[in-house]
């Protein structure tokens, strides 16, 4: 059921077995899993069922570090959360991402990839992905194009899957509305968390609307699932009983902010006879849309003190017809609307997207023209490729979300994001590309020109808008905010869900891991709550 806290009579108190704050991929998945196990869920959404300026404005804050990022437009405060504009690329984190590493401080989760594998598989249907297969060996007999003949002990063919992308509002809003075990309240903003007097048990949370209505939610367990920035903001603002903020006894909440450095650089030139058809575009086989990249083998990553990375090959076509350089906000808005209409839905933020199309009409026309021509012209394979990646950053306690004096209309302090992009991270990427170049040379396939300079130019790094790490998972309360079960160490019944619990970011887009962790958390809460 879905209720609007801004309309009708405001209940004095709302109760359930579990209170889930946030309706993005983590929150909705968690609520549905718990409901299927017979638990009553109070699901809170700060925004409405669709985009609203006044609600979205609560996300505004300051950027004080590396400035190729933003803290407001990259997130969506509405039902479905940021799934409303994610791009849909998915892969699980690698086993390496979970391991402690002697060469990189603060690396390593208290769980392993094997612990998550069953939940990754269960997360696939939520995101409309194909079979849970990410090993190239599972695809090579199905896909008719060969992988580059590189030494598999040095370079792996990495497999990603493309979600349509699933919009959680489109796909799950009616399911939530029809689910009797879920009471979803929109316009319900969490403003405070109250602990039992002198204890470590959350007794209630205070919820306000922007027009001044207030209520209290009581549950056996509480889960905050509001995204990597907002999760930290909520804990840091909850200072009534814990002056440093809830869960912040060791000054960790907000620290270790990590993102993926979206970088398109370095150029691979192949011999004319090298078959590269596997790489430049996604391919549809066996019910999945897959995209292949090049990944340095984990043993080499450790041996050479690299960060994890998966490099996708962006074709540089001599013939402009095959180039995608027309892609901009206008084109993305156009293609999103087209896909949404084709599924029988009206796109959300329709006016905004329409205006984006109008603003970039030239690019949209170019895109339509080229797509039409590509259907009739024989494809000329490209032999030059740029490497595009969402590169990993090493965990860094100085990269952080902090509170600033400015407050929002609900009285909560806004945040400043101090995202640190370091020379070390970029030099590791340079060495990664150099290694790829050496292996391409060793196989006699071509040559690579490095795009990351030494010393590096930090301005080549853009945010992947993957906000991670601010309530990181660690077995030791002095090194992490939540334990292996996502429970805030210093409380008995408060949990965090979403990418804020990521101890490392790896190089995989985070939504699949967010969803898998939510299913795993639901398993635990279904037993304990």
């Amino acid at each position: 059921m879905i209720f609007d806290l801004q309309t009708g009579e405001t209940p004095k108190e709302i109760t359930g077995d579990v209170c889930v704050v946030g309706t993005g991929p983590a929150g909705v998945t968690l609520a549905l899993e718990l409901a299927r196990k017979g638990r009553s869920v109070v699901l809170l959404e700060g925004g409405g069922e669709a985009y609203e300026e006044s609600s979205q404005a609560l996300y505004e804050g300051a950027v004080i570090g590396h400035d190729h990022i933003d803290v407001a437009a990259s997130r969506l405060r509405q039902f479905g959360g940021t799934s409303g504009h994610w791009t849909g690329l998915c892969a699980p984190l690698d086993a390496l991402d979970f391991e402690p590493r002697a060469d990189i401080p603060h690396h390593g989760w208290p769980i392993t990839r094997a612990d998550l594998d069953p939940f990754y598989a269960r997360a696939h249907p939520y995101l409309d992905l194909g079979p849970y297969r990410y090993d190239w060996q599972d695809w090579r007999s199905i896909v008719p194009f060969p992988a580059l003949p590189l030494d598999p002990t040095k370079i792996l063919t990495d497999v990603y899957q493309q979600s349509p992308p699933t919009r959680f509002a489109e796909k799950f809003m009616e399911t939530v509305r029809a689910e009797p075990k879920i009471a979803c309240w929109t316009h319900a903003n969490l403003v405070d968390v109250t602990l039992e007097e002198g204890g470590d048990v959350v007794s209630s949370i205070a919820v306000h609307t922007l027009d001044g209505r207030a209520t209290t939610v009581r549950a056996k367990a509480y889960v905050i699932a509001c995204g990597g920035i907002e999760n930290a903001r909520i804990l840091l603002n909850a200072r009534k009983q814990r002056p440093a903020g809830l869960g912040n006894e060791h000054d960790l909440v907000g620290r270790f902010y990590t993102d993926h450095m979206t970088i398109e650089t370095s150029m691979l030139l192949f011999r004319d006879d090298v078959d590269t058809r596997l790489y430049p575009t996604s391919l549809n086989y066996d019910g999945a849309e897959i995209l292949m990249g090049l990944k340095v083998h984990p043993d080499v990553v450790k041996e050479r003190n690299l960060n994890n990375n998966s490099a996708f090959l962006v074709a540089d076509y001599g013939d402009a017809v095959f180039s995608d350089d027309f892609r901009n906000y206008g084109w993305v808005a156009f293609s999103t609307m087209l896909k949404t209409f084709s599924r029988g839905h009206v796109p959300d933020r329709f006016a905004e997207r329409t205006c984006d199309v109008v603003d970039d009409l030239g690019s949209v026309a170019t895109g339509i023209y080229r797509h039409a021509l590509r259907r009739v012209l024989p494809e000329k394979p490209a032999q030059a490729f740029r490497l595009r990646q969402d590169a990993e950053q090493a965990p860094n306690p100085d990269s952080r979300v902090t509170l600033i004096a400015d407050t929002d209309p609900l009285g909560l302090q806004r945040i400043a994001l101090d995202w640190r992009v370091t020379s070390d991270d970029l030099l590791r990427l340079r060495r990664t590309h150099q290694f790829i170049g050496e292996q391409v040379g060793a196989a006699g396939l071509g040559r690579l020109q490095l795009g990351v300079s030494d010393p590096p130019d930090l301005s080549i790094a853009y945010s992947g808008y993957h906000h991670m790490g601010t309530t990181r998972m660690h077995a030791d309360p002095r090194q992490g905010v939540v334990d292996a079960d996502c429970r805030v160490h210093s409380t008995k019944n408060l949990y965090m869900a979403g990418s804020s619990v990521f101890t490392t970011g790896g190089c995989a887009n985070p939504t699949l891991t967010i969803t898998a962790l939510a299913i795993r958390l639901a398993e635990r809460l279904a037993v304990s709550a």
Partner: protein
Amino acid sequence: MGKLTRRALLGTAAVGAFGLVAYGGGRAACSFVPRNHPDFFSLLDIPPEGAVARRIGEGALAEASLPSDFDALATAMKLRPLIAEAIATDCPTTRRQLVQDQCAADFAEGRCVVIDGWVLSETEASLCAAKLLRPSII
């Protein structure tokens, strides 16, 4: 100036004919004699002409700590087994393949340099450098 006699003409023709036969026969005979005359210069046709190869050659000499005189560079390169084999090969196609194989071996064994951003094998960087140095030698 003396008189040109028939005897003198015949004698000159005979000497010329003998010379030709001797030279031709010698060349024919020598073709069966194994020789060890490495032709390093033949390798210098492999790097392409043009500004890029030249810039790589300059970069290799400046940044890759290569010997800066041609003889020392050639000597160092001849120590690489496939280069030594290429030098002793007459067939340009085989020679090119051997050089490419040596480049691949360099990459596999980590003998790489970065010049102008390009990740290159030491062999190809050295060849570009040698090509730059050659005009002062021949």
